[in-house]
């Protein structure tokens, strides 16, 4: 597994950028344009949200545990599938944003379903203890969510820790 960490650049035009650095062996890591694009948009707080990203698509232990065997089987299928007409491949940044979100959960005792959108985003859906639906779609730069218990749907930027924490707290 290759782990990358994020290091903040000095202020750069519209905001701060981040550099991805291979923390395993210290070698330079080849960064795809999409990673650079994402990094460009991210602010200072991203370091705290995305402490590590598995660039080879292996999920971190907490996300693996949350998805369970069924979810991981679906994840592997989505990872390996060739998109059909009009669909995108699974987005690595969506994987990263989902992992970053899951890493902030203190309770992972529920069993979500994993879906893949036509845009290549991952989506988690489940019902809370009261039977209310929860839906979260992980875009490369934002999370769209629906919390039926609170009759609320909206979106937050993937790099906004306080907003993400608000969602997490409402899941409890």
């Amino acid at each position, binding site marked *: 597994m290759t782990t990358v960490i994020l290091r903040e650049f000095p202020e750069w035009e519209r905001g701060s950028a981040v550099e991805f650095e291979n923390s395993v062996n210290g070698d330079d890591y080849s960064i795809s344009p999409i990673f650079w694009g994402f990094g460009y948009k991210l602010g200072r707080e991203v370091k705290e949200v995305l402490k590590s990203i598995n660039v080879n698509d292996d999920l971190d232990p907490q996300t693996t545990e949350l998805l369970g065997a*069924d979810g991981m089987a679906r994840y592997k*299928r989505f990872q390996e599938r060739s998109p*059909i007409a009009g669909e995108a491949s699974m987005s690595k940044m969506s994987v990263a944003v989902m992992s970053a979100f899951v890493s902030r959960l203190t309770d992972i005792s529920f069993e979500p379903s994993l879906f893949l959108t036509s845009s290549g985003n991952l989506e988690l859906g489940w019902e809370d203890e009261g039977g209310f639906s929860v839906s979260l779609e992980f875009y490369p730069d934002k999370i769209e969510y*629906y919390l039926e218990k609170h009759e609320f749907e909206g979106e937050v930027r993937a790099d906004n820790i306080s907003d993400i924490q608000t969602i997490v707290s409402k899941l409890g």
Partner: protein
Amino acid sequence: MSADELPEEEVLIRAITDRLYDERKGRYSSEVFGKPRTSVSRLAILGYDDIVRIFCSDLHRPPDSTLLGYVEISVGALKEYGRNFESNGKPDRRQIIVEAKPVFKEIGMLDNPAHAEIKDGLPRSMNKEILRALKMTSVECK
């Protein structure tokens, strides 16, 4: 109302693949009706068998994509959901438009004269409400 907009009495079917439905847990993705230009097919133009044949040809590509079935809903029912929609606890009426978009000579796809699109993506809460009321009809592609 544009010439392509479908009347309320038309009945639509929406294909469900394994990407959008978790068979083991019985849950649907919010994308079933959640994205702009959601593809549906019109039973006023083709029968079930013909539409399912097109779904199987275009969407059933195991292991990449498995067609599991379809759900059925009328344009009128969709519009009713839109009229009664509440967003974050407040009335938030939505105009739901379904337009005829026949598909001809698209690479890698069968012609589908019954193809139509739900113009705007429906909110996640509406998607959930609709899917709770629908029952998927299973399909086995040969």
